[in-house]
């Protein structure tokens, strides 16, 4: 990589003494950390032993009463969305705040635009590419118009991916999976569709407005549902939400609703990450 000429002396001076001191200290630190942690691990309770302290009454109650109390056959789903729902609520907020930060960074308006133009100019000079060729290289302008292999194969694959994603979300409480994994699958499907057919095709059903509305509605429903269950739980009021028969699709009370909400948020988030990186707006 080409560096500025007058930066070179500063860099080389830094990469001289200071750099080597830093490297040696860091190496010592890393090796020390490994041995300390490894020594600690050797004294921990052995893995796979059923008498470990963490296999206590908490885990036992989750398994023995979990189905009855949460209505979810998948105990892990029941645990994260009912017993320890506050954690999971925080987790969705992590996703939300990360989307906000990525939007601030990458959505193109104002300052961002100038940076973009400058970067383009630099790219052109440093790679020595003709304007037309450059446009093709840059992913923002690059739409695979004639890639028939991708188009045909994605036509076959995408419906399967989307249906599978919906299946994983809807069955989160009775089989492995749940909102997050299903949402990621859905998001991957949208991204594949986008890369095969371009923005003009996806904009028909996914644009900034729909993404905003879906995220808003899903998060609000999540927030209200959880607030209701926290409030009733803490004030010892019966929540009055039927749990249904364990094992059926329509069972386990709020868990199904929450899974759908999380799935929608995650699918939109994944898609908007990709769109923001590729063209600077959703």
């Amino acid at each position: 990589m080409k560096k500025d000429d007058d930066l070179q002396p500063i860099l080389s001076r830094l990469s001289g003494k200071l750099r080597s001191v830093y490297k040696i200290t860091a190496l010592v630190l890393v090796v020390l950390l490994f041995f300390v942690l490894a020594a600690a691990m050797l004294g921990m309770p052995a893995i796979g032993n059923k008498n470990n302290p963490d296999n206590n009454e908490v885990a036992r109650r989750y398994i023995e009463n979990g189905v009855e109390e949460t209505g979810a056959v998948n105990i892990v789903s029941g645990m994260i969305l009912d017993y320890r729902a506050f954690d999971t609520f925080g987790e969705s907020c992590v996703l939300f705040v990360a989307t906000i930060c990525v939007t601030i960074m990458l959505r193109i308006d104002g300052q961002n635009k100038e940076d973009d133009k400058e970067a383009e100019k630099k790219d052109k000079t440093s790679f020595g590419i003709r304007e037309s060729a450059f446009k093709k290289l840059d992913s923002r302008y690059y739409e695979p118009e004639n890639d028939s292999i991708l188009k045909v194969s994605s036509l076959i694959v995408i419906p399967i991916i989307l249906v599978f994603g919906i299946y994983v979300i809807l069955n989160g409480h009775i089989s492995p999976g749940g909102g997050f994994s299903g949402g990621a699958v859905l998001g991957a499907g949208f991204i594949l569709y986008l890369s095969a057919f371009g923005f003009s095709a996806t904009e028909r059903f996914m644009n900034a407005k729909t993404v905003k509305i879906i995220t808003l509605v899903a998060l609000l429903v999540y927030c209200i549902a959880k607030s209701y269950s926290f409030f009733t739980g803490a004030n010892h009021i019966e929540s009055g939400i039927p749990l249904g028969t364990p094992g059926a699709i329509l069972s386990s009370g709020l868990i199904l609703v929450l899974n759908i909400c999380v799935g929608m948020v995650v699918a939109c988030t994944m898609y908007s990450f990709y769109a923001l990186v590729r063209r600077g707006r959703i």
Partner: protein
Amino acid sequence: MWSLITRHLNDIVAVALFVIGFADLLFQRNMIKKIIGLNIMDTAIYLLLASQGYITGRKAPIIVDGVESASAYINPIPSGLVLTGIVVSVSVTALLLSLTIRMYKKYHSLDLDHCLMMARREG
């Protein structure tokens, strides 16, 4: 000694992975490699966490056939924690990558030290 290590194999591997990620973070100057290092660190922690809940010879805690004795399933708590942790690490990775894109656009370099120097010179 050897049997002790085999009994704690997951833990040791997790620690080794964590340290590899940590070293990556300290020694690499390229942002992308630093992010990879962070991801390795996260993965190591999830391996450690997941193996705390494992019990030899037991099944995943999904009660399909109505077998409800607690001694048939592993501990579900660490699995749930790993799920939560993964979401955190996905968000953090996306954020770091977007920051890296902006940094590259601005300074045309992925080298964090180099960019820091350029930023300092801007005043």
